[in-house]
């Protein structure tokens, strides 16, 4: 029930166990080798955490958006790539959950997601559309029973390791670039030809390679709602809510390491407050401010969740872009300051206080949809929007 704010502690405990026992253990290796976090994803499947958003009547646990966001953050604190792919997967699942229109194929598919814990990747970006997900070059071509779908996807994160792919395309060969549908492609219905690698500063384990995707699927794999509506009601707001929680998870983990460092300093000389304790206090304040603003944005979404008209408003789109921008702007300084507190111990890559990976992963926040692009969108929307 994505439109609710409740959080069940039992779910959080299950996620924390996966984060601590599995994701954290492999995070450095995932990062070093820029490899898929296979152990963490397997553990998430074992713990039945991939399909929890599916409603109980279809075999899931009806996880709330607040629960999914918290879990993404917890995982990201242990291994940012795992947290990010968890968030991306849930965004796809939420799009299907909300927009399947009761079609038998999709209700069956959702059961499978709960039962088999299928992992879903996203194929929204495309070569030649300038990074605009609301515009497609490729189209689906229908025959009596099936459609074919071929896409030059500039990025499909974890595409090589996913079970299924949810992708955008123009509705038909003669449709305009913005006249899009969202289709589900099961792994055995497509071929993926990998194009290029993923050797990045951070978020290395998401393995976000480019692909040529070629698929032929039954017609009932097309979601029955225009992508324009899916985007404004679900994909755009849930992406920003879930991503920001991932970055918050990275920041929280960095601050927690800095605090541990200050505590260890304090223990060396009881009775004397270490000089960097003040820095840590400032940092915790900054973290709590960030946490509050992210929670605020999430609650604004949840509050409007069942009102498509208000979700389609420009003011809301601006608000969601802003939480992404401001989180990205805050998370990097927070990790930097945590590093300043721990000094050389954070700078080194071989101490319990190492923060190099956090810092590199945090930088993903401002380039994963470039902040300037979102500022550009908001600048334009503010020419017409009057909402405060």
């Amino acid at each position, binding site marked *: 029930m994505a439109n609710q704010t409740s959080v069940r502690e039992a779910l959080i405990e299950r996620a924390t166990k996966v984060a601590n026992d599995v994701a954290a253990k492999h995070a450095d290796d995932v990062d070093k080798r820029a490899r898929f976090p296979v152990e963490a994803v397997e553990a998430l499947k074992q713990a039945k955490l991939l399909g929890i958003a599916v409603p109980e009547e279809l075999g899931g646990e009806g996880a709330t958006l607040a629960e999914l966001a918290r879990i993404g953050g917890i995982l990201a604190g242990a291994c940012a790539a795992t947290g990010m792919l968890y968030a991306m997967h849930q965004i796809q699942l939420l799009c299907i959950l909300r927009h399947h229109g009761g079609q038998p194929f999709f209700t069956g598919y959702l059961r499978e997601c709960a039962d088999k814990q299928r992992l879903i990747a996203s194929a929204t970006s495309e070569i030649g559309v300038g990074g605009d997900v609301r515009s497609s070059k490729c189209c689906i071509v229908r025959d009596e029973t099936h459609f074919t779908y071929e896409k030059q996807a500039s990025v499909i994160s974890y595409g090589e390791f996913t079970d299924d792919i949810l992708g955008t395309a123009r509705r038909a060969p003669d449709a305009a670039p*913005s006249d899009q549908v969202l289709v589900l492609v099961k792994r055995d219905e497509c071929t993926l030809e990998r194009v290029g690698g993923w050797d990045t500063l951070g978020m290395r384990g998401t393995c976000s390679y480019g692909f040529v995707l070629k698929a032929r699927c039954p017609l009932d794999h097309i979601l029955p709602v225009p992508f*324009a509506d899916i985007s404004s009601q679900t994909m755009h707001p849930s992406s920003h809510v879930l991503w920001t929680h991932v970055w918050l998870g990275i920041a929280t983990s960095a601050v927690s390491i800095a605090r541990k460092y200050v505590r260890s300093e304090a223990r060396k000389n009881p009775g004397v407050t270490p000089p960097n304790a003040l820095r840590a206090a400032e940092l915790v304040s900054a973290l709590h401010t960030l946490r509050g603003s992210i929670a605020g944005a999430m609650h604004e979404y949840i509050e409007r969740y069942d009102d498509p008209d208000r979700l389609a408003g420009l003011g809301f789109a601006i608000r969601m872009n802003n939480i992404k921008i401001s989180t990205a702007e805050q998370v990097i300084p927070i990790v930097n300051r945590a590093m300043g507190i721990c000094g050389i111990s954070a700078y080194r890559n071989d101490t319990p206080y190492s923060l190099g990976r956090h810092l590199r992963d945090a930088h993903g926040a401002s380039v994963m949809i470039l902040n300037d692009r979102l500022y550009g969108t908001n600048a334009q929307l503010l020419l017409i929007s009057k909402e405060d």
Partner: protein
Amino acid sequence: MIDQIRGVLRQHARLAVDVDTLSADADLYAAGLTSHATVNLMVALENQFDVEFPESMLRRRSFESIAAIQSALAELTAG
């Protein structure tokens, strides 16, 4: 009013088809209206008709066809 709306569309909507071939009910998004161009269209309509669209009208649906635009404008200029 319809002619003026068509004129604004011709100048600012950057459609994939000739505006004159569109019926009043034709779906402008299907005709190639992008979200980016929608904002330009809204600004141009505000200028042309000397109105301000309230936030509640700033929805895709209010601008999805010539008829929808006409009814939005009629609502604003009625009072």
